[in-house]
């Protein structure tokens, strides 16, 4: 790949080519690989908490099942769908960037942000519900309402606290990633507004999209793990 080829000279003039890369293709490949590797680290990051969840769910199934029944499945399902919609707008957005369709891209990013903020809003409502019901671990933790709903199964409040600790830790960490995602897409909105994206440069949009989809996938697992442990018997 001699630096003096015409193609290389043309690409050398691309304003987004960083000096240490030979050409735009190498830059794009490196950036994409970088984001995938980062997402791999995120799998291990969330994975540690999945171990904690796994261990305690096996050990304290009754409390986990009862706790799971006490969170709002309707809101959870709606939120799952909100995120799926946002993944659609992201995927369409990456395509719009790739085709240089600035206005469409801006609309799709804004929609994505609306969905993302909507998710966070609903999550906030759910957390507030837990707070009101005294299901937040700590001094005022009280599961007498849950125990009442399961008169035949004695529930250990300490073990129930473990469920709710994991509930808040997992959804909290996920929400933090969503907030970061919103920040990333605000930055992408600005870049799109400036007309930075087109067929030969849309990498930030693509790797931002990969991040967003990953956060969606984490939720796709959190939903059944937290909300659907046991929805069978009416207590």
């Amino acid at each position, binding site marked *: *790949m001699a*630096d003096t080829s015409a193609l290389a000279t043309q690409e050398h003039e691309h304003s987004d080519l*960083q*000096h*240490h*890369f*030979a050409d735009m293709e*190498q830059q794009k*490949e*490196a950036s994409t*690989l*970088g984001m995938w*590797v*980062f997402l*791999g*680290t*995120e799998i*291990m*990051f*969330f*994975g*540690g*908490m999945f*171990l*904690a969840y796994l*261990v*305690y769910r096996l*050990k*304290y199934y009754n409390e986990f099942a009862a706790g799971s029944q006490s969170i709002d499945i309707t809101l959870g399902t709606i939120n799952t769908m909100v995120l799926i919609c946002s993944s659609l707008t992201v995927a369409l957005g990456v395509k719009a960037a790739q085709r240089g369709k600035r206005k469409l891209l801006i609309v799709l990013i804004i929609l994505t942000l609306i969905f993302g903020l909507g998710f966070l809003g609903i999550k906030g409502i759910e957390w507030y519900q837990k707070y009101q019901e005294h299901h937040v*671990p*700590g*001094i005022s933790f009280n599961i007498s309402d849950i125990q009442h709903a399961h008169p035949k199964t004695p529930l*250990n409040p*300490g*073990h129930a*606290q*473990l469920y709710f*600790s*994991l509930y*808040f*830790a997992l959804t909290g*960490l996920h929400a933090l990633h969503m907030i970061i995602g919103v920040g990333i897409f605000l930055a992408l909105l600005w870049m799109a507004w400036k007309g930075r994206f087109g067929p030969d440069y849309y990498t930030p949009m693509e790797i931002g999209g990969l991040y967003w989809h990953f956060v969606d996938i984490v939720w796709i697992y959190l939903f059944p793990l937290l909300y659907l442990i046991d929805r069978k018997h009416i207590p």
Partner: protein
Amino acid sequence: MATPAVQVERPNYLNSTHGIRSWLLTTDHKRIALLYLMSVTFFFFIGGLFALLIRLELLTPAGDLVMADTYNKLFTMHGQIMVFFFLIPSIPAILGNFLVPMMVGAKDLAFPKINLLSWYIYIFAGGLMMYCIVTGGVDTGWTFYTPFSTAFSHTQVVMAALSIFINGFSSILTGLNFVVTIHRMRAPGLTWRRLPLFIWSHYAVSIIFLLGTPVLAITLLLVFFERAFNLGIFDPTRGGDPLLFQHLFWFYSHPAVYIMILPSMGVVSEIVPCFSRKRIFGYEFVAMSSIGIAVIGFLVWAHHMFVAGISLYAALIFSILSYLVAVPSAIKVFNWTATMYKGSISLDTPMLYALGFIGLFTIGGLTGLFLAALGVDVHVHDTYFVIAHFHYVMVGGAVMGYMGGLHFWWPKMTGRMYPEIWGKLAAVTIFLGFNLTFFPQFILGYLGMPRRYWEYPPEFQVWNVLSTAGASILAVGYLLPMVYMIWSLRYGKIAGDNPWGAAGLEWTTQSPPITSNFEVTPEVTWEAYNYDEIPAPEEVPVG
């Protein structure tokens, strides 16, 4: 002897731009490496200070230098600083950052700005840790075991946990940069089989950085959540399992020790062929062993937990796997030895460190096998035997490799030679001081002296005195290079582009290199370690 004023200094990465902003905002991997060199050295001496205080206390059986709680803080801070702020970054962030792009024929790492960010994250985390120290420190041991760390310790656990959590991102981003660079930015003709083994080691280290560090991150985050928000994940009174913490903690912290040793092994793999004037024996085996160590290293963590309450079944599995992990390390030792056989050996300072590494790492590694045997471990767990074992591999191994690497690449990085006589003297001092410090500790552990104890029965005193004497010699050994290397920056002999006659793309460049490393992107048509084609240096450089 040197007269720097006479030479017209060629443009290079050190003199290309001036001023503090050009350093603090640099994206040049070589400058970032030097930024790390300064900060890592700083933390090395802080950690060393704690070590000295520990050894001073242990001169006498009674606890008479510091209070018991203070002693807990001393060994905790020593461990945390040395592990997270010295050993883990040392070679990758300094030599790795400097050399990885050059060894693959690239102008820089894949993500230079992220490289700079890594350093700033490290500095910020280090600042938090220093603040933690001056506001009372931590007393939980570097291992943060729950429920003491989450429910009972009254020290700066949250701050220390946050500091190390943040520091983890520095490692992760460095690993990410290395992996992408090695995959995507190799020069034309540089196939995987032609890569220097230093690169293979750093690739393996990066795998551990990327897959292990996030688990430490989540573990520390959970400790933080428990202390700050009362989310009692590890709280036994609520049914939490302290062993869950230990599993999560050691899942990272065991591979972490391979983070510490693999880069040193990479350094040794570069030094030994050069000073034997011979191609490395069994290149593929050494390369694959690096990957093997990284992978198998993830399968052995619960050998730190044999007496903690894991099931016997699990203990058996982890014991067998721990024996397995020794195999690739042993393969490397055999290959280095075979490389030297019938080679033309010269005992320059880097080679002295490499030889020291091979001997001391072997001792440390073999004692690891003692510990992997369940019956033996029951006897020596939590004694000085363990301390001696890991200091043999981490100091006798990793730090010797680090020192050897610094000396080997010093001329490339600075354009100057360090004074060879002082180099040799320091290496021998370190070797002798090290053995005097830590060999008695094997005996102490075998005799039953527990670790992390501030006072001990009088019959252990003689070994403790020997150990402390060794530590003072070791301290002198480490101070010497500080002095003469700084001295060499101004008065050292000007180094040529390849004073060692070494193989590798980095040696085809100027010393010190220009900012973009290469005038023209190299095209590689030769195999690695082509010492049959490279002439030996005319004279052995003498300072």
